[in-house]
Every structure is written in structure tokens, then in C-alpha cells.
């Protein structure tokens, strides 16, 4: 019978501890931070958590927002995708946060999406992604494929005269979609089927011998060849090492990567990488006053003069600034009001110029191409003239070329089919 | 063309009306002991890494006989039992149970189902079960998965268990965990498990190790009373014990039969004396 008491006691304790959270005074504006602090994604996401905390601190120094202080609520979804949904629900129902900054992987965003839409929350997603999505409740401050992949290919094609293409990626949705878009784009530009090689590898792939040797063979056909890499995280180091060891230099076959930034390079011996490329909307090396200030603040905040900044951090920075502006404009943190106020918000980029939030919840940003230097930084070698508007639905995919996203009246829809004039797949 | 012929020939063979398909053939047939021999072991060979554990071993056991196997360590006694019960595969040779059951083709449970029970050298009982449960599990019943799931003890079976409990003297301990029994009691329990399963052939490996003199005596009594209705093969080192029960004794040496006969015959056998010179025989 004692077990009974134990079990019932436990149940009660569990119930009580959960109930007691509900009612907390709301004299602050709560900012939810939904980034993994443990597990495989902690490497990348912890930085973004710290960025949000830094922004919150700065905002509070400026006197807060609407006369209230900001309060960050940090939870740890532990790189576990179902846990993202659970923690999002916790943030919205228990902590009643006014906005969430969070997510890194696509799957984490996909996991959170139904919850955010059900509970009408507001989330800022700061990482480059595959597009093909536009939710009323999410603002995408990272790059869409047309803000990263397509300009990069343009650069290779026009500036370096690349004719043969290796699209190498880790086997998940972002590389798949990006490569689909690129393939369609390249073919539209007249590249023959036989001049495109597509290759997928598993997460954390470490034995690149065969693939690099294939790339080498593919590149020895007398036409200028480049690798467009959507290889994810950990797999990059062995990939570049193998490239270096098999004698493929960046002049022979340049690699342009979309997932390699300053943070990733800080753990790599960059010697074999020098000259390879990356496409982002931000590089730490960009010389601008705003950037210098940001970097100084960041190093001071984190207490480590060697820490680097990267593109998702800038995306968080822009997202946060836009949100504060939108809240000021709306005069409230009410999600619907802020959502409408967000559209058209302008915020200076760290790299110069001004980012604008479009009707499709994506940003207009400049695109930069940088070459990796031996100090782990990028040297900008090319940039777009003016800004590129993020495109939620790619024009190069058959399924989505008729879709647009427009969150202003009268369409007010994330995936509006311009042919059938219908709006589908909305969760509210 | 010839392939086609082969195929039709095979097809014809397959459809012969005078034969039942092998997999449809009932496996459980009564043991055929019309020649009075219940166990035929012929030309058995087995080697482990070059060591010949069994070397062209031949052995015939009559139905209802009580046979003792003796021999030094490594003579192949336990290995022989392993081969008979299907635990170990031999390299060559044949083992028949009665005239119609080739034991080498069968797995341990099938051999057990044929009615060959075994007691191990080291007492092996289910320590996490009670004495009663140990016996219940040993009952001669349908041992398929579903019948076992739905099994209920019948009054006859209960009586049988009670009876055996009486025989092995563990009536008091019926609800005690087998793991809590003394060594001797475990020996008895294992014998009880054999009894309750009503086997045709009992293979008993060192039954009296760790028993008191009194218990040994009772064991001897029990084993002799079993012979006749059952066939019993006993492996034992205790010569006193062997003398007290044995009618026929087989001496194994280096994996083959060295001598066979009554205790006295064996003891006076020249080869045996030569091999065991200076030993107790």
C-alpha cells in the first residue's frame, strides 16, 4: 500500500508543480528563447541564445519597451525535435511569452510551427533555410535560397566561368530543396544534365575519400568545375581536409558553402580551406561602424575576445530590432498587432544598407560572397548590388512556382496560389 | 532440355501419392524398441581444436537397463551426454533413439519431448522459481507457446507433483525459492524435475556429488527402482555408489569405450587396470 502513497504523492507533486506556474504577474515583457543548450545542436544554438540575451540587456539599458522591462525566458529543447514543440507550448501557455526567438534546424521549426499557430504566438527564426514556407506567426530573418544559393551560383558562373557543377549536400531537407532549386536554375541557364553531379551524404559523414575522388574526376573534364556545398556542420572538416589532401585547391575546384560560417571555422585548421567560398548575408570581416560596435559588444558580453560573430547572429539582431520597433509602433505586444506592424519595418544591416521586412515575412538583405582566409575569417570578394528580397516560394520548383505569400490584406495568406487564386494549408 | 526433364522428374517425385511430404510427416512416433535396444551410438567422433573428445565411440543401451558410465576426466562422458541430448554437434557418427529416431537431426527440446531427460553435472534448477514451479515447468505436457500461456494444472498433474515432492523429500520446501536450497536439495530437485517429466531415458550426470551418505543411499534406491520402466544412464565418479547400483558398467577412455561388463569384470579387465594403474580401481 505504500507504493500507492508513493505514486499518488508523486502524481500530486507533479500536478502541483505544474499548476503553480500558471499565474505570475505580467509587469514585464517576456521574450522566450528556444534554442538548444544541450545535445548536438548546442554548438550552434547556444551562441544565438547569448545573442538574444545580449539584445535584451541592451534594450533594458535603453529603458526597456513600452515602459516595461524585458525579461528573457530561456528553455532548453535539447536538440530533441518533439521537445521543441513541447517547450514552445510551455513558453506560450505557462510563461506566456510575448515573442519567441528560436530554432536552428528546419525540423525544429517544423516541429514548433503547429504549436505557434495553434496558440497564436510570434516567433523569429534566424537561420538560412530552404524556404517553401510562410507562416502568419513566424518571421524568417535568415536567408531564403534565393538570397544565398542563387547569388552564389551566379557569382561562380559569371565571375569564375564555372561550367560544371557538383551539388553536394547532407541528406536532409535544406540541401535537398536547395539543390532542387539550383538544379532547375542551372538548367534554366542552359547547363546540360551531364554537367551537374548531385551527391548526398549522411549526417556527420567522415570518410570523404570516394566522393572527393569522384569530384576530382568530374572536374578533370576540361571545363571549369565548382562544388556547391550544402554539407552540414561536422561533416565539413573531413571534407575540406580530404579536398586538400587529394590536391584539389580552391583555384582548381572552388567550393562554395552555405553552412560554413565564422563559428564553424573557429574549430577548423583553415589552411586547407583558404580560397574556398561561402555565401552569407553577413561576414564578421565586413568593415562598418555598426558591425564594429556589435562585435565589441558581443565580445564584452560573452567575456571572450576570441569569440566570433556570424550570419545567424546578425539575423537575430535584425529580427530583435525590428520586433522592438514593431512593438513601439503597435503600442502593444499583442501578436496580431505586432505582426501587422512588422511588415515594412526597416532596420540597418550590420554590413551597411537597410534590411526590410516584406509582406511574405522574409527580409530583403544584401548577399555577400566571401573567400576563406587563413585566420578563419572571410574576405568579401563579391556582393549584390542593393538588397535581394527573400522569396518564400521558389520560382524554380514546379510545386511552388505559382505560390506567393502575402500577409497584408486582401490576400492574407502564406501560400496563395496565383493561378487558382486559393489559399491552402493554413492552420488558423 | 535435360533441366526440364529434371524438373518434371522432380515434380513427379514431389507428387507421388504413396509418400507423405517430409514436412507433413508426423514427427512424434512412439519409440520403436522392438530390438530391445533403446539407444544406439555408433562411430561417434568429435574434436575440439584437435583434441579428440570422442573417438569412434560405440555404445548400445537396452530398454529398461541401468547403465553406469565411468572414466577419468576428459574421457568423454559428459560430451557423450551433450551429443545425445543435442547440445553439441558431433563431427561424424550416428545416434538413434530406438530404431526410428535419429537424434542428431533433432534439437534439444525435440529430444526432450521424445522422452530423454537429463540431469547436469552441476545442479541446474531455476533459482528464481519455487520448488513447486520448477516441478510444474517440468511436467510432461504440451510445451508449445500458446498451450503454455493458457495452461492450468489438472488434478492429476497436481497429484503427480505432490507425489514427486514426497519422493525427493522437499514437501516442506515446496514454496521455497529453488535458489535458497542447499546443494544436495538442488540435486534432489533436479532429479525430481526429471521424474515429473516421465522420460523413457534418463541421463544422470554425477547425481550424488555433495550428498550425505544417507542421501546417497536413497538416491541409489531411487535409481534402481526407476530402472525397468525407464532406462537410466548414470555417470559417476563415486565407485562405491556405482558398485551399489550397477548391473552393467561401461568404461570410457579418451573418447572411446575401453571395457564393458559387470563391475567385477570391468575391475579385472587388463586394459582398465593398465589405464587406471595406481588408481582406486
Amino acid at each position: 500500500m505504500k507504493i500507492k502513497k508513493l505514486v499518488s504523492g508523486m502524481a500530486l507533486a507533479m500536478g502541483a508543480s505544474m499548476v503553480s506556474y500558471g499565474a505570475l504577474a505580467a509587469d514585464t515583457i517576456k521574450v522566450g528563447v528556444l534554442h538548444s543548450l544541450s545535445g548536438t545542436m548546442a554548438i550552434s544554438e547556444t551562441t544565438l541564445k547569448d545573442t538574444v540575451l545580449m539584445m535584451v540587456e541592451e534594450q533594458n539599458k535603453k529603458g526597456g519597451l513600452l515602459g516595461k522591462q524585458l525579461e528573457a525566458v530561456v528553455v532548453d529543447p535539447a536538440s530533441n525535435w518533439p521537445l521543441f514543440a513541447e517547450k514552445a507550448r510551455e513558453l506560450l501557455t505557462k510563461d506566456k511569452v510575448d515573442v519567441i526567438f528560436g530554432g536552428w534546424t528546419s525540423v525544429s521549426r517544423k516541429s514548433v510551427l503547429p504549436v505557434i499557430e495553434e496558440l497564436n504566438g510570434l516567433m523569429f527564426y534566424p537561420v538560412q533555410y530552404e524556404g517553401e514556407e510562410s507562416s502568419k506567426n513566424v518571421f524568417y530573418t535568415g536567408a531564403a535560397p534565393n538570397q544565398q544559393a542563387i547569388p552564389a551560383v551566379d557569382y561562380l558562373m559569371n565571375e569564375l566561368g564555372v561550367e560544371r557543377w557538383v551539388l553536394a549536400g547532407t541528406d536532409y531537407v535544406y540541401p535537398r530543396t536547395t539543390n532542387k532549386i539550383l538544379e532547375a536554375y542551372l538548367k534554366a541557364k542552359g547547363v546540360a544534365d551531364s554537367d551537374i553531379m548531385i551527391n548526398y551524404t549522411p549526417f556527420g559523414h567522415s570518410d570523404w575519400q570516394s566522393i572527393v575522388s569522384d569530384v576530382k574526376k568530374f572536374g578533370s573534364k576540361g571545363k571549369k568545375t565548382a562544388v556547391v556545398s550544402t554539407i552540414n556542420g561536422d561533416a565539413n572538416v573531413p571534407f575540406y581536409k580530404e579536398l586538400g589532401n587529394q590536391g584539389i585547391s580552391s583555384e582548381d575546384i572552388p567550393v562554395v558553402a552555405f553552412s560554413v560560417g565564422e563559428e564553424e571555422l573557429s574549430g577548423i585548421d583553415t589552411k586547407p580551406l583558404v580560397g574556398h567560398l561561402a555565401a552569407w548575408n553577413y561576414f564578421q570581416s565586413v568593415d562598418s561602424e555598426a558591425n564594429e560596435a556589435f562585435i565589441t559588444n558581443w565580445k564584452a558580453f560573452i567575456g571572450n575576445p576570441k569569440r566570433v560573430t556570424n550570419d545567424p547572429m546578425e539575423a537575430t539582431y535584425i529580427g530583435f530590432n525590428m520586433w522592438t520597433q514593431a512593438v513601439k509602433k503597435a503600442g502593444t505586444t499583442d501578436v496580431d498587432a505586432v505582426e501587422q506592424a512588422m511588415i515594412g519595418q526597416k532596420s540597418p544591416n550590420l554590413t551597411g544598407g537597410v534590411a526590410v521586412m516584406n509582406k511574405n515575412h522574409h527580409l530583403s538583405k544584401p548577399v555577400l560572397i566571401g573567400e576563406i582566409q587563413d585566420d578563419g575569417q572571410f574576405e568579401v570578394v563579391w556582393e549584390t548590388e542593393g538588397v535581394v528580397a527573400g522569396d518564400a516560394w521558389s520560382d524554380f520548383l514546379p510545386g511552388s512556382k505559382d505560390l506567393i505569400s502575402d500577409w497584408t490584406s486582401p490576400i492574407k495568406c502564406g501560400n496563395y496560389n496565383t493561378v487558382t487564386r486559393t489559399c491552402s494549408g493554413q492552420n488558423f | 532440355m535435360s533441366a526440364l526433364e529434371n524438373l518434371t522428374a522432380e515434380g513427379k517425385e514431389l507428387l507421388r501419392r504413396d509418400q507423405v511430404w517430409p514436412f507433413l510427416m508426423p514427427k512424434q512416433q512412439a519409440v520403436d524398441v522392438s530390438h530391445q535396444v533403446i539407444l544406439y551410438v555408433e562411430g561417434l567422433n568429435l574434436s575440439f581444436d584437435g583434441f579428440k573428445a570422442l573417438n569412434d565411440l560405440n555404445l548400445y543401451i537396452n530398454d529398461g537397463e541401468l547403465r553406469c558410465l565411468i572414466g577419468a576426466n576428459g574421457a568423454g562422458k559428459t560430451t557423450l551426454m551433450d551429443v545425445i541430448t543435442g547440445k553439441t554437434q558431433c563431427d561424424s557418427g550416428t545416434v538413434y533413439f530406438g530404431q526410428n529416431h535419429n537424434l542428431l537431426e533433432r534439437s534439444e527440446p525435440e529430444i526432450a519431448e521424445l522422452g530423454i531427460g537429463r540431469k547436469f553435472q552441476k545442479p541446474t534448477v531455476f533459482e528464481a522459481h519455487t520448488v513447486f514451479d520448477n516441478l510444474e515447468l517440468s511436467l510432461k505436457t504440451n510445451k508449445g507457446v500458446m498451450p503454455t500461456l493458457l495452461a492450468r494444472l489438472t488434478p492429476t498433474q497436481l497429484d503427480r507433483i505432490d507425489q514427486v515432492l514426497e519422493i525427493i523429500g522437499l514437501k516442506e520446501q515446496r514454496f521455497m525459492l529453488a535458489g535458497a536450497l542447499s546443494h544436495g536439495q538442488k540435486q534432489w530437485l533436479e532429479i525430481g524435475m526429471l521424474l515429473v517429466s516421465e522420460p523413457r531415458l534418463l541421463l544422470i550426470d554425477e547425481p550424488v556429488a555433495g550428498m550425505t551418505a544417507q542421501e546417497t543411499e536413497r538416491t541409489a534406491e531411487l535409481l534402481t527402482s526407476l530402472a525397468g520402466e525407464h532406462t537410466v544412464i548414470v555417470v559417476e565418479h563415486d565407485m562405491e555408489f556405482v558398485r551399489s547400483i550397477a548391473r552393467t558398467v561401461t568404461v570410457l577412455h579418451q573418447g572411446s569405450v575401453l571395457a564393458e561388463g559387470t563391475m567385477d569384470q570391468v575391475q579385472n579387465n587388463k586394459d582398465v587396470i593398465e589405464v587406471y594403474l595406481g588408481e582406486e580401481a
Partner: protein
Amino acid sequence: MSQSLSSIARFSASDLFKGKGQPGGRVAPFVAILLAVTVLASAANLLLPESSPFYVSTYTITLLGKYLSYAMLALAVDVIWGYCGILSLGHGAFFALGGYAMGMYLMRQIGDRGVYGHPELPDFMVFLDWSELPWYWLGMDQFWFAMLMVLAVPGLLAYIFGWLAFRSRVTGVYLSIMTQALTYALLLAFFRNEMGFGGNNGLTDFKDILGFDLQSDTTRVALFAITALMLALTFITSHWIMQSRLGKVVVAIRDGEARARFLGYRTDNFKVWLFVYSAMIAAIAGALYVPQVGIINPGEFSPINSIEIVIWVAVGGRGTLIGAIVGALLVNYAKTRFTAIMPDGWLFALGALFVLVTLFLPKGLVGVYDQLKAHFAQPQSKSDESSTPHQESAKEASV
């Protein structure tokens, strides 16, 4: 005679609810508590206003539902490990397969409400340019068929794997490593986008189940209640099985497989049967888990997950059904609390838990509880102890 007769009859259904001292004695109270908590929590969510201090939020309900499906998963592992001594490091695979089957049904229920508005294809197939539904997705729009698959696919996999493994006597450590390889191979396979299961993203954005909106509180409460009921049901069934002669054979196989074989039990058949049974419970747990958390992806196949399940069971006490459930609930609750307080410390705590439990609590918390109870009960009656051998035997765990 009559005495032993009654001892045989002790497993009849009515006795389940009045047993004393034996593990059977835990069935009735546990089921009663479980159902009571379920009813109270559901009522508190549906009937009370949000302002009431006793209101239970939907978040809590969903969380409880998740815990309960984990408990069911732990039960499945316990049945095969605690009772039969087969340490499966791949039960996460069956859980995930069940989850995927349910996920496929839920995906099909979306119909043309996907973002691309395709009448049949799930979104991820549309943007991968698939023109038609792969054959294995056919029929998954029917609830009954999907539920059949929830049981059939993991069951079949368990059957094939078990049949191959147990027949050739792969045991102990080898088996554990093979089960781990199995779930690892499935992990890699489900990561592949060509498999048609949504790759890394898995299946998500579910809308409704059997026509009920998955977002509504009522549906969530209902799912929670169904999970509780299924847990109770599988608990009672497993208890009944473990008390039957089959259960005894299973324990006998754990402690002396060779002996059981010499008694005429085809132990491989028993093991396969139990393995399939256990896999099916895991699959049901997975199927209940998915609609509640709203996503299923290959991460569930990861070998680490499967090992974690084992530790729930070890913490609670293997070889006792209640132990597995208590372990799963406690560890998961601790995980939820701990990761919120100190995310870095959690892995230290979890790691230490593994080491300490194996070193000092081989019988888990239930073992400690029993020891304490026995300690306090000792002066009263010694006969009580001797009449409860099953309890001892059941939690005796030698592997």
C-alpha cells in the same frame, strides 16, 4: 491438495484485484491510481475554468500523455529484459515504427490542406517532385488499416529479427549489439529522403485524427485518457502473462536457457513470441506518442534513445512491471525539471544515474522499496516472507 489448488487459481482475474503481498497485489492499486489521476486531470482540464487553482493546463495534459506513453515503452522493454533477460538496445525502433505508422495516417488525414494543396501527396513529397504516392503509403488513410500496420510492421520486424537471432542462439551481449545495429540501420534509412518518410524532418503538421481536431483540448484530453487506458490494459495483460505458466517459462529461460531446452521447451519460440509481444507494446506506445507530441522523425531511432529506455527500467527496477513504469515516469519528470534548471548538468546527472543504479541498485527503486518494507515487516511475521516467493523471484534479475 486444496491448498495447492488455490495456489494455482491465484491468477484468476478476480484475484488480480485483491492479492496481497505478491506483485499481483500492485496491479489493482496501480490501475486504480492511474485511472483516478486520468479522470481527475481530464476533468480538471475540461470542466474547471482556467483561473481555478486546480485547473490543469493542456500543456500538462500533453506532458502527462507523453510520460504515459514512455511508461508503456518502458513496460515493453521490461517484459523482454527484466523477465526474459534479453537486453534490447533497439526498442526505440519499434516505438518509432509504430509512431511512423500513426504519423502516416495523420499525414494522409491532412488531405488537400497541405501547403501545396495537393489532394493526396504530403507536402514533402510535393517539393521533392514525387508524382504519386509510394505503395507503402496506400491504405494508410484508413484508420483501421493504419492501426493494423502499427502492430503489424514492428511485429513482423521483431518476428523476423527474433526468429533469425534466437534460432541461431545469438544471445547476451551479441544480441544487444545486434539490436543496436538494427535501430542504427533504421535510423540511417529513415534519414534518407528517398525512403519517402520525410527524411530528417519526419512527419509533422498533423491536423486531425478520426475527424477530431488535434489542436482542441478535448482531443488532447481524450488522447491522454486513451494512453492511460492502454497503459492500464497492457499492464494488466503483461501481468497476466507473467503470472501464467508462460511467464514462468520466460523467467526460466532467463535463468537457465539450456535447462529449459532440456525440459522440452522450444525456447526460441518463446523468446520470439515475447519479443514480438514486447515490440507491439512499444509500437502502440509510439502510435499514442505521435499525435500528442505532433511530430515523428528519425531521431526516435537513435541508439541513445533506446539505451535511455533501458535506464528508465533499471532505475525503476527491472523484472517488476510497476518498476518500469515508475522508472519511466520519474526519470522523465526529472529530465523535464533538470533540463530547465541546469541544461549542462543534466548529462552529468543522467550519466551518474546509470553508473550508480547499476552499481548500487541492481533491483532499482522498487527493489529498495521492497527491502525497506521487508526490513520493517520482518519482526511481524516470517511466514509472510516465505509465502511471497513470487515477489522475490520476479524481481530477481540476473542477466
